[in-house]
């Protein structure tokens, strides 16, 4: 199991975090804090001495600033940045083949280690490419992830893509965690639910979550 970096979330997921050799999708609207789960996942991996690849469409500076807001610090133990600016590998959103090749090469070079991959480029890729192209890209990526015993966490923006695209994406991944806003009377609640997780019996129900300076609080939603 790969810890999410948040003990409360680990309990909700499968007891100890994300399953080994799995691909997990985080779905939610912009601003709800999906990226924070990626930051804690990366931080947790680095603290355990695992190798971490972080693929982002932003510059490293922007991600580090954002991380600070959530009390995460990956400046001591650094992931391998695959970023538009400031990373060890330059990320070009228009070069899908290059992205696929580079990720595979990095995974190959670190074969034998525990590998964690965080990707926040999926929505951008879906906006610039036909969905079928992205499905093929993901199928290849997932095969590599499984071959090299990695765990992959990807974020996807809710509301930016057609429902059928979103459904197909959820189908492709081993696990899907939704972080969404829900209306309850005159209140808007941020709730989390685990749509599916490979190897884990379905766990129905919603969970309240909130971010604190040191992490995230998760509790069962009680209507």
């Amino acid at each position, binding site marked *: 199991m790969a810890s999410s970096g948040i*003990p409360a979330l680990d309990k909700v997921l499968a007891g100890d975090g994300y399953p080994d050799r799995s691909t997990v999708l985080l779905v939610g609207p912009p601003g709800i804090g999906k990226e924070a789960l990626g930051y804690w996942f990366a931080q947790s991996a680095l603290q355990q001495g695992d190798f971490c690849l972080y693929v982002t469409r932003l510059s490293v500076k922007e991600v580090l600033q954002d991380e600070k807001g959530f009390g995460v610090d990956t400046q001591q133990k650094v992931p391998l940045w695959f970023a*538009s600016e400031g990373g060890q590998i330059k990320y070009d959103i228009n070069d899908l083949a290059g992205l696929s090749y580079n990720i595979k090469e990095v995974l190959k070079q670190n074969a034998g280690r525990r590998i964690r991959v965080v990707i926040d480029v999926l929505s*951008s890729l879906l906006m610039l490419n036909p969905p079928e192209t992205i499905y093929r890209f993901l199928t290849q990526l997932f095969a590599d992830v499984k071959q090299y015993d990695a765990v992959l966490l990807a974020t996807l*923006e809710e509301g930016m893509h057609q429902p059928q695209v979103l459904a197909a994406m959820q189908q492709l991944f081993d696990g899907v965690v939704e972080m*969404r806003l829900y209306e309850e009377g005159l209140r808007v609640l*941020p709730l989390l639910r685990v749509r599916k997780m490979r190897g884990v019996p379905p766990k129905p*129900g919603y969970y309240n979550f909130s971010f604190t300076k040191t992490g995230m*609080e998760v509790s069962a939603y009680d209507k």
Partner: protein
Amino acid sequence: MTSSSGIIAVIAAVAALLALSYGAYWAFEIRRALAIRLYRSQALGIGLLAVSVGLAQLYYTGSTFYGWPPELSFVSILFFALALFYWTNTSIRAARQSDPLLRDMFRWTQLRQLCVALIITAVIYDSANILYNVLNGYVVTATATGFLAIAFEIPVLVPVVAAAIVLPVVGLRSKDPVLRKHLVWFGLFAVFLLAFIEVLSSAFTDPLQTILVQDVGLLLGGYCLYRSARSLAPINRLDPIETETPPSADVVKS
């Protein structure tokens, strides 16, 4: 001016303020639920904007019927202008975040510095001018001329022009349906505001009629602003089947 006209006008203005505040309430609720500062700021901006429009109208009504000091109308209009600029700025930055190529439209990161400098300079100048007039017992009129008129307009003109020019382009170029919907509803709000406050109300000479027409525009615009606020982020409905099955997780703090 009869007192009953004043009461009717104030009631209508309060109704408009309440309608706008309902939109603001949803914006603040969404802000509370979000975690990222930029999107929280955008929600705060639209909420403040809604409240500022309502307050400006209420103050205008009060100064028309009850002679509230005109110096303070500058404050109420300034509040609106600053809220508009704040929301415009955050919306453009949110649009950049949703752009796959992260384009800085209109070089906004640099342009906004110029806008901020202009607004701050004009606000300081205007405030000093009003203070000078008040301390010396001069009457501050709403019909300033020449340089003073331009200086008075700048804090309002800059946000309005920036919003009117930049946001439609941002909305058209954005591939984010959520942001587009938010901007479309805001655009409708602006249309109602312009149509009723600037165009239709000027056809009436009676102050009560003028203000009532404006308030009708604000009520209609208030609905659009409410829809705009609700479009800040997709809001889902709870699945009743899943809410009936209580999960067994304990409350854990990490």
